[in-house]
Every structure is written in C-alpha cells, then in structure tokens.
C-alpha cells in the first residue's frame, strides 16, 4: 500500500463538495482510500485517525486543502491525486443546459468558451478591429470576414497576431478550411495533402473544389485577406501561413493564390514558400514579375489545382470541356456578371475587359455595403442579368454560381426567374449563357443537381472558371465553343 498526499494552499471548498470529489476519485482501480479535507483541526484529526497524514507530510493550516490517497502502487496513487485536482478544477459552469446571459462582447464569449481557439468576426467594418483585438487578447486566431477595415488597422492586427503566434485571416476573408472545417463561404472538399494559401476567397473556393473534382484533397486552406500582399501589410499572414503549412506533416504541396500583389512582397512570399522544401504552385493573378526558381507559376486557378494535384502524385485528368454547344453565330459582347471577385478577375483577363466586353463583380464593396454578399443574396445580379438581355450588343452572358456552406441554399433556383426572363426576351441563337458552378458533390446544394438545373435552363455549364471564360470568348468571336 502506498500513501501519497498534496496540499493546495489557501483554497476553500465546501465539505460536501470535497466529499463528492473524494468519492469520485475512489472509483479508480487500485485506490483504497481518498481523503480530501480542509486543514482545520477536525479535518487534520480525521486524517490522523485514518493514519493518512504521516509526520513527514507538510504542515497545513485551516485554509489549506489536504488531499491524501492510499493506493496499491505509487503510480496509481499519483493518478488518483491528479484525478482529485482535475475534479476540483473541472469547469464549474452549468453548461448549455442552463439558461445563461448571452455574451455581449467577443472578450466575454472568448472567456466563456474554454475550447475556443478561433473567432469568426463579421461585424460592420468600423467595429471589426475592436472585436479582432479582443479575440487576440483572449489568445484566439481570427477569421475576419468584415470589409472596410483600414489598412493601418489591418497591419496593426497582423503584427500583434504574429508576435503572439496567432493568425489573422482577413479582413475581407471569405474562405478558409482548417482541419477539414470550412469557415465562411467554403466548399466541402476531401481531406488530402494540398495546402492552399489565398488572398482571395472565391479563388480558394475554385482551387479547393477543383482539387476535389480532380480526385485529390486539401490539407488546409488559409485565407489571408485581399490586401495581405499589399506593401503596407507586407504579406504577414501569408508568411505565417507558409510557415504553418511547412510545419504541417499532412501538407505535401503548397498553392499560393493572390489578387495582384506588390512585386516586392510577392518576391518575399515566394522565396519563403520555396524554403518550405515542398513543391510550390503560385497563381498570382496579374503578377508579371519573375518567380524564384522552384516555384511553378501558373496563370489560372484551374491550372493551379491541376498542377498541385500532379505534384502530389495524383493522376492529372483534364477537366472536361462543356458538352458541345452550337456557336450562336451571333458575334458580340461578353457580359460577365460575377459573385466572386477573383473569378471575375480571372475571366476578365481571359476574355479581355475592354469594351465591348464588360465585367461586374457584385461581391465588390460598393455592391455589398449594407446588404448581403451575392453568394447569399443574388437579387442584385439577377436584375443585371435581365438588363444585359435588353442590351442587343451582348451575345454571351458569363456567370459564376458558388455552392458550399453559407452560400444560397439553391443558387440555380434563385437564378431561374431571371434566366427565364432572359430567355423570354432573347432566343438561344441570339444570346448564350455560359456558367461555371464552384462546388463539389459533397456541398449541401449538390454540384450535379445544380449543374443539371442550369443546363435545363439552357446554360452552357463549364467545369472551371477558366474554361467558362474561354468558351464565352470563343462564342463571342463566333467560333465553336469546343
């Protein structure tokens, strides 16, 4: 038989509470007796009578808590002591079953949620820095969806986060996938070995869902916010994300996706990526600088996905061209009406953004101020769709539909009235609708179902945004889409 003891100085507990804890700790195998008492005179004499407080045990006063265990072996005894400590410090909160005052601040919520390690901040921009700073104070990483945060606040948040080993994803971060969990607008994708870092939400969505469609999977996708590679921010989050993916054993290749970056920052970031000694694919839309050796530079999001799949040993299947569609014969303008900023940007580069072609990003700040993002609420774009049909110079309407968590529950259904209206005004020989659905078969909306409904509405559905843009361009030039 072994005796083990410990003293918790200066901590008062009610005796009933202590009896309950002792009883629970007594249940451990090999434990014969557990005493947990305050070091008052009666408490100590009780222990003495039970021969559980030998002379060599430390002195104790009435406000000290004495914990004493008799067990078969020393190991078991110490395990029982640890169990008592654990029971004493177990969360004293009543848990969700009890009604509770709701937390009024991020600071309070962070304190109450013991298991939290990240804060999702999506409040109006003027308030977002306060909540993000409170999250950092509580030691939480931040997923900062809000836009309208000043560049100075962004830089300050990210510097503070870096010094504390925390990540600030954002501001204006639409998407992340951490450990298989989607934050914000994210698609359900297979877990795998490709790590994605992106300054663009829909850019990440496109790359991760194409990786899934190509049969591979994603380790993590880390959003950085659209301005992370701005000179004033210096790629702080991107650099941290590279470091984190470098240390992550599941990640075997790294894809960096960005909107037009600062050349200096792009260079720094790419050099850091090469140092991970993992294959690196860079899709920096609009970046024309040199890329350091070891980086596979690609021009489009679907190339980024397929290159990464190839680098991690996946069989690279070509994404299918759309089922043949007759050239409309009507040359004319492409009108790109987009919900995703990077998708819009990519398509504009492929089609050519100058007149007669025209591209509108309905996710841009000017359209989202005071109203939901078009991924949630397509009404604004629907109106523009009908307007486009009224413009006789428009021969092709190019669209994106975004599936996934937080997106509209049925984007095609939401589009139906507008597309029907378009068809009522313009015949299919006269005006073609080309669309790409960002999503996977695991998304709640179901990729196949959404694509099928789109085809039923007379749209040409393409497997990637790049293919959709190329198809639109060919049609507008009077060439066969395939």
């Amino acid at each position, binding site marked *: 038989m072994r005796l083990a003891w410990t003293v918790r100085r200066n901590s*008062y507990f009610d005796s009933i509470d202590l009896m309950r804890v002792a009883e629970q700790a007594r249940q451990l195998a090999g434990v014969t007796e557990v005493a947990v008492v305050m070091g008052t005179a009666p408490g100590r004499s009780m222990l003495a009578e039970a021969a559980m407080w030998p002379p060599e045990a430390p002195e104790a006063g009435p406000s000290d808590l004495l914990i004493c265990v008799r067990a078969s072996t020393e190991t078991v005894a110490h395990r029982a002591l640890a169990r008592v400590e654990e029971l004493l410090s177990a969360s004293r*909160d009543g848990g969700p079953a009890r009604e509770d005052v*709701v*937390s009024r601040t991020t600071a309070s919520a962070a304190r109450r949620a013991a298991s939290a390690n*990240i804060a*999702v901040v999506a409040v109006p921009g003027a308030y977002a820095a306060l909540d993000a700073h409170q999250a950092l104070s509580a030691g939480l990483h931040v997923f900062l969806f809000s836009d309208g945060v000043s560049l100075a606040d962004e830089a300050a948040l990210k510097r503070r986060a870096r010094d504390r080993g925390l990540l600030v994803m954002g501001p204006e971060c639409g998407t992340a996938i951490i450990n298989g*969990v989607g934050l914000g607008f994210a698609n359900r994708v297979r877990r795998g070995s490709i790590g994605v870092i992106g300054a663009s939400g829909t850019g990440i969505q496109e790359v991760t869902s194409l990786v899934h469609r190509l049969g591979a999977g994603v380790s993590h996708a880390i959003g950085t916010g659209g301005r992370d590679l701005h000179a004033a921010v210096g790629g702080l989050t991107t650099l941290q994300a590279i470091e984190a*993916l470098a240390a992550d054993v599941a990640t075997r290749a790294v894809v960096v996706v960005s909107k037009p970056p600062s050349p200096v920052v792009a260079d720094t970031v790419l050099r850091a990526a090469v140092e991970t000694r993992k294959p690196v694919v860079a899709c920096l839309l609009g970046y024309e600088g040199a890329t350091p050796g070891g980086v596979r530079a690609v021009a489009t999001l679907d190339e980024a996905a397929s290159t990464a799949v190839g680098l991690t040993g996946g069989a690279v299947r070509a994404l299918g061209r759309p089922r043949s569609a007759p050239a409309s014969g009507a040359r004319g303008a492409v009108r790109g009406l987009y919900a995703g900023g990077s998708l819009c940007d990519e398509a504009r580069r492929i089609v050519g953004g100058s007149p007669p072609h025209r591209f509108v990003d309905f996710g841009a700040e000017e359209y989202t101020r005071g109203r939901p993002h078009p991924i949630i609420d397509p009404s604004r774009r629907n109106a523009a769709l009908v307007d486009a049909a009224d413009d006789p110079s428009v021969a092709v309407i190019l669209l994106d539909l975004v599936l996934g968590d*937080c997106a509209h529950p049925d984007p095609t259904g939401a589009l139906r009235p507008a597309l029907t209206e378009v068809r009522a005004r313009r015949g299919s020989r006269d005006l073609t609708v080309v669309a790409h659905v960002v999503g996977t078969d695991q998304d709640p909306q179901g990729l196949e179902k959404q694509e099928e409904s789109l085809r039923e509405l007379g749209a040409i559905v393409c497997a990637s945004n790049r293919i959709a843009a190329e198809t639109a361009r060919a049609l507008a030039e009077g060439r066969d889409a395939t």
Partner: protein
Amino acid sequence: MPPEIDLLRAPLGAVVVGPELFASALVAQGIPVRRVDWRPPGSPEALASLWCDAVDTANRIALDRLLAAHQILVDVRPAIEVVPGMTRETILHAGPPIAWEDMSGPMRGGIVGALIYEGLAPSWQDAERLVTRGAVRFDPCHHHAAVGPMAGATTASMPVLVVENRTAGNRAYSTLNEGLGKVLRYGAYAPDVIDRLCWFRDVVGPALGEAIRRTGGIDLRALIAQAVQMGDECHNRNRAASALLIKALAPEIAGLDLPATERRRILAFAASNEHLFLNVGMAACKAGLDAAHKVPESTLVTAMARNGTEFGIRVSGLGDQWFTGPAQTPQGLYFPGFGPGDANPDIGDSAITETAGLGGFAMGGAPAVVQFVGGTPADALEYTRLMYEITLGESTAYRLPPLDFRGTPTGIDVRLVVQTGILPQIDTGMAHREPGIGQVGAGLVKPPRVCFDLAFEALVRARAGAADVSR
C-alpha cells in the same frame, strides 16, 4: 522569433460575432460555437486602442494581485496608531473628496458626531464653527488605506480593524460596525450614539484586539468564501459571515481578563449585530484592491465609493485620480414610517465589496438580498451573470452554489463597462437625508455612467501617450 502557430494542430472551437449564418455553418460541421450578442458600441476606435498587449499584461498583473490576496484580520487598534497619515484633527470620510458645503445631511451628521465624540466640539453649532474655521482636515478614507460604510467618519481615537494582505504585505483599516438603527455612520450623533462609540474605544476595541491576537489572526479569505456559500453577499447580507466571525472569536473573548458582565455584553452586542462583519469584509476587500492599484495602464477598477453627493471610482492604471458623477438614489424597501422621499443619495465606501466581486456581484448566491427590489432568486442570478460581462475574471475563492460553484465575477474592467453600457450592480443600505435619523431602508443602486466614461477617456489618453513614447 515569433511563437509557432498552433491553429492547424488543434480541433476548432469558435466564437462567432456576426450573422447567425456563420455560426450555424460551424455547428452543422460539429464545431462548438459560442455566439456574441453583438451591438454596435460607441467610439469603437478608442475602445480598440485599449485592447492591446500592454493593457492585457497590466490587467493580468492587477487581476492576479486582486485574486491572490489572502486577507487576515490581525488586530484592532486606535486609528491614530495604525492608519497612515492619521492626525488628531483629521476626519476621514467615505467616498471621493468633498467640502463641508457640498456634504449631504448624513455625512454632516457623521462628521459632527465624530467631532463631539473626540471632544473637539460639544454641539452641532460648535462643530460647524470649527469646520468653517478650517480647523478640521477632511480626507477620504480611501486615501489612508481605509474604508468606512455610509458616512464613514473615522477619527484618531476610534478603534479600527487591521486587515493584512499576506500575499502583498499591505494592510487596510475600517472602524467597528455599530449595528443598525441610530448610528454614527448614518449621521446620527445623539448621546447614546456617542456613548456607544466611547464603549467601543474603551472596552470593545481593546477586547477584540486582544481576542484576535490570541487567535493568531482570522483568515478572512476562507471565512468570506464560506459565508458566500451560506447565502451572504457580504454587503447587504452579512448574517453568515457575522456568525462565523463570532464563532471564531467567542472562545477567546470568553477567556479575556474582563468582568463576566463585560464579556457577556460584548458577545451579546456582537450576536445582535447582523452587520458585525460588514466593516471587516470591507477592509478585506480594500486590502485586496489596494494591492491591485497603481499598475500602469491597467483598466481595472480599484475603488467605487460615494460621499452622499458624488459617486467616484478609481482605476488601477490612473493612480490617485477620482472620476466622479452625481450619486443616485437607491431603489428598494423602506423601514416602517419611511418612503422614497426620505432617502439620501447613495453614500458610503461599502461598494468596495462589489469592486472586489462581492455584494451585488455575488447576489446570485444570496437571493434573500434581491427581495429588497421585489426580485426573485432567478433575478438575483441574472444580476450576477450580467456582471461577468464587465469583469476581467472570476474569484478563485468566492464560489456560488447556484452557478455550480463558479467564482464570483471579479475585477471591473472600465473598457467592458463603456462598451456594453452595463453598470455595476450595487447592494446598499439607505440613509435618511436628514442627519441624526439613521437608516431608512436598503436596496439596489448603480453608479452614474459618467464616472466610467471619464475614466475611459483618461485611459485612452494615457494609452496614446504611452504609444507615442514607444514609437
């Protein structure tokens, strides 16, 4: 080298501030989520400037000092012997500094009573003359490591409780509680009031001092912790704590070298006074909060006190400054024969209990108190739960049975008060607005918001200054 990023290694748990959509998407993926009931605060930029590493560190230090305080009642001594800066001409009073002209009825009554008791003036008129001649020095108790309930009048020969914070080594002081009814702290100064004070000075003070010394000191941290589990919040309800105190002292009082009648009289007085412990608890709170005071940049409130005219707060990072606003009139129940028109605005240093995580902050464990405002035990819990929204931490000693022994909300944070607009909930007694009448009831009261707004502005200025220096 910045620390490593652990995000990719641990399972996710999220706090969500923003649309329901983001929270439900996470819940659907099996992630634990705690939502924020967000409302747009005023001055978000100024608020954000105070959520930084410097303030976090300062608050952690200040809160740790408050939570770690281990208070022992070690003695009772004449104020002149132990209270720092005490002189024969000094009268300490409750609340922030105040001039005679601005004092309310009960405050003046308490001061006149104290002057009569000290033999410095035989009557109200004489006392007033003495005061207007400038012969009396007024100073807040708080400036002398002391606290006094209601008027808080404390003079040289009064016996004071000596409470030592064993963790930080500092001491705090408070007078002996006189019981309810016509008492000096409520501005009564009739001969029987003065006689009781003389008895305190000549008999009770020395006797208690000796008894306490013989016990080797009474552990107040443990005693309060026990009392809280017995239904006290140690401001408006001190029944359990007073009983525990008598229990600790009675054997030693019984053994004192005094006539049996005198020993009996002392014990009978103690036993009849439900608020015997109030002043002891207040000194214990003060001893903890003084240890947390003057941590540069800390936004922790270290004192809330009222002088019957103004409510004032002090903040750890803002040194000796007071931030004041007009004292409010409590809402509550009145003794027979009194009504709302009789109550004086909020008075006394006893809000030190709330400042330390007791009183209104511990009301959830003392539902009896909520009846002063016609509330239910559920309301009492609600008051306490709300206070977690404006505090930096939870007591490691005072635990509330109805909240599954969660520690009481402790350490008021100016930033959180200003952001949420939730004001500290204070339990309090009510004094008659005229001197000499005494207590008329008890109830609940809040500080005026302006105290916190002013302190907040000062903190923001201090932060901007510190940021400039480090730049």
